[in-house]
């Protein structure tokens, strides 16, 4: 009885594998959609793979990890989410913080047992001139090398009530030079949730502030980094 069951499982797995290879051959990408098959032992059955999809909502709108059309899930990473999670505007000055709200939702059909993480890539700074000056549309500061280290950042989970970055049991500390876009990039992936049920969300409040050490040389600069949210099965 045990051996038969094991063979049955093996056969199902094998079919799934073959179907997967076939799908790869046809689409040149791993695709998990609705797939049905017939069982060899005992009547007619069906098998459907689940989906694991992540969405992010910020002030610019909602972005989904998949383009959400049938058969299009491949790497299941959308690398072109619009809007900044670090706030907006061209009027940021030292020691005045701003917050932005980010909501991450498991839009798939299956629960995530391994949870949700955030990885931040290296920060780079560029001149981002304020363009409305009648006299000097190209004015930006010269501190491109040091600017990323002067953007203080904290990330608070409104779902858990804990500070995610820096990790703290409760509220985040005030933004400071101890936690900047530079230190965030070198941090281990941040665990935003250890698991995330289908349909469940994680809310984040990201606070940014131009550090008190910023000078005129930091005026008009923009810091850019890639933030990757990953939801595992």
């Amino acid at each position, binding site marked *: 009885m045990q051996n038969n069951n094991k063979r049955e499982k*093996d056969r199902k*797995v094998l079919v799934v*594998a073959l179907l*997967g*290879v076939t799908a*790869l*051959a046809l689409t*040149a990408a*791993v695709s998990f959609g609705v797939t049905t098959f017939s069982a060899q032992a005992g009547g007619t059955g069906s098998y459907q793979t*689940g*989906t*694991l*999809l992540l*969405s992010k909502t910020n002030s610019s709108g909602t972005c*989904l*990890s998949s383009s959400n059309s049938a058969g299009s899930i491949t790497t*299941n*990473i*959308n*690398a072109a*989410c619009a*809007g*900044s999670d*670090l706030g907006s*505007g*061209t009027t*940021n*000055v*030292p020691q005045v913080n701003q917050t932005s709200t980010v909501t991450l939702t*498991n839009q*798939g059909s299956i629960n995530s047992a391994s949870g949700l993480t955030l990885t931040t890539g290296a920060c780079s700074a560029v*001149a981002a001139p*304020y363009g*409305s*000056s*009648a*006299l*000097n549309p190209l*004015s*930006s*500061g*010269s501190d491109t090398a040091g*600017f990323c280290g002067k*953007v203080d950042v904290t990330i608070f989970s409104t779902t858990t009530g804990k500070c995610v970055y820096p990790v703290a049991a409760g509220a985040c500390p005030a933004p400071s030079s101890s936690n900047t876009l530079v230190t965030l990039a070198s941090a281990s992936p941040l665990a935003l949730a250890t698991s995330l049920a289908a349909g469940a969300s994680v809310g984040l409040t990201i606070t940014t502030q*131009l550090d*008190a050490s*910023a000078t*005129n*040389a930091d*005026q*008009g*600069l*923009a810091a*850019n980094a*890639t*933030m*990757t*949210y*990953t939801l595992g*099965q």
Partner: protein
Amino acid sequence: MTTNPRTPAQRCWAGVALGSLALMGLLGPITAVWGAKFSGGLAGTIGFQAGTQLLSDTIGGTNCLSSPNTVGGIGTNQSSCTTYPLSSTIGSSSTTTLGNQGSVAPTQATVATGGACGVQELVDTSTTGTNTGLAFGGLTYGATGPGAFTDAPTSITLDGSTGWGETLTSLAGQANYTLMAWIKPSARNGVLIGDTNVQSTTAPTNTDRMVWIDSSGRLNFGNNTTTLRATAASALTTGTWYFVVVTKSTGSGMAIYVNGALNNSSASAGAESTLSYNGYWHLGWGSAVGSGFSNLPTTNYFAGSMADVAVFPSALSAAAVTTLYGKTTQAAFSTQVLADAPTSYWPLQDTGSALYTGAIANLPANAAATTYRDASNNPGTNVGTGQGTLGVDASGPIGDSATTFDGSTGWIQTATGPPTAFYASPGPQTFSLAGWFKTTSSGSILGFTTLQGNGTPTMWDRHMWVDPSGHVVFGVYPNGYFEVNSSATTAKNYADGNWHFVVATVAPVSATVGTVLLYVDGALVAGSAGDETITGSDPAQVYGGWWHLGWSNATSTWPDPPTSAYWGGSLGQMAVFPSALSGANVSSLYGAPTASAYLAAVTGGVGASNAFWPLDEKAPPGSPACSYIAMTIQAAATCVYPLEVGACPAVPPSNWLSVSVGISLTLPTLTFTTAVSGSVPATGTGIHVSVPWVISDGASGFSSRLTHTLGYVAL
């Protein structure tokens, strides 16, 4: 037998992974892992942008921006503007329009002097002595220097009608000497260098040792009774640089060199001496017109550019002149000049930013009378006039300066009395007095008497003083002495050398009862509602009179009088209200953190004052010339210097060029108006009085700044 440790399921997944790898060879690398899982991800490049703080000002159509107009250019965010907010003509105004060119709205703007006020100087770099030159009239800096030099020399430019350089040291005339200059005339006229026995362009009694250009363009050199004229062939043309040297020697006579070569000479003049007098060198000016020399110009003023003027105590040799002319850089030329040991050498590479703050003969510091403005808007004409010894306390209350009183002679007489309403009989009956005081002794803060002066009046009350115990006392005389004394609630000695804020309020409650209250430092310390018995609804004595600041007649007949009728200490922000302020009003006044906030309060915020004397008039600048120039600054609808509501008054005589004021929130148009304070000696006419100006703004850590150093006011 080799055992495969993987389960069949794992082996199947491995097959999938390998198959995927095989296919993915076309797709680029992927990472295959055992137990592959579903995953979803989101990524995006996010950004954070800092704001910008940029300040511009526009003067006469010329813009100046706090940052250079290049990417990455913002560092100190400070620019040096080629424009100047002050008009160069005394008695006129100049308007500067400030603009915020950045993305961040500034929270404050400040207009301030950026350094000492002084007179622009033409530096004497000789090593034998300093004979500083001063700029006068139409003299400007920074024109291109002698074309023979390759290291970007500069020169001064004279307008041919008002500009010249005056020197400070009176020197004895010498029989042997050399005069030298690089010139680029713009007119065939005027004097290059000349000596007279007086400073300035006033007619001298003695003139000698002079070089000029006549109407034919020929150079002339005058010494004693001789005029040596350059050849007709060497007539100068305008717009060309020439190196001019003249020498006088008791041995070889007079000589003119042009561009390093001897042009003309007169050996017979060697026997001549120079006139015997002590005189001053004038650069670009000489008393030629009407003199006894020949081939005279029609104007004494040189027109054109000039550099490297020098006087040597001997006749340079022809070789020495040739050597000088052969130099190809300003640096090498200057070195050679100094090697030839001049008495004075003015390279005229000046920029106008070097200021002379020392004494100037015949131009003593201005001793203008001290006037203390009435900054109230009712209508602000109750001006105070200083009497006796008064001074400036730079550490006044609420960030402003204050006036010091010597305790024995100094007090301030006010202008308005009867028959003006409120001052005419019965005098103020509902009123409040407010002000800041600082003292370590007993004396009078203010008083109201029937006399404008501080003689013995026929009636006197409404007096405020500090008694010998340091208690604050206020008294009125409703047919009897009535005093409120801080000792009623506190034993505190307020004569402790610190600033304190006092308010007294008086108002009738009924025909027979009045209320007199005394507040110190925002708290009610004496008096209560209906505490005063009065007659005829008059809580104070019935008479018309004048306010006196720093003096009262309380030493005469009043209980618990002050030790002195005068005030020994400082007073500031004194206001008289035609109403009884409430306790909340008093708190508001006491809490006003700045002079501008206090001004807003006393001109309507808590009540419209009848008179308001800030007593923040400034001390005259250290430079004598600067003590003749007063000014106002109008910022949009507010006068920020002196600080007043609405339009600035006619320039008060003690509002010197030394200014530092803050302008809140908005960037206005500033109008600077200058005026002469006092009577300027002729010596000072046209002198370039200059002070660096800084206009800055800031917002939460960012700042921008514009400095102006090159301008001047011709006194």
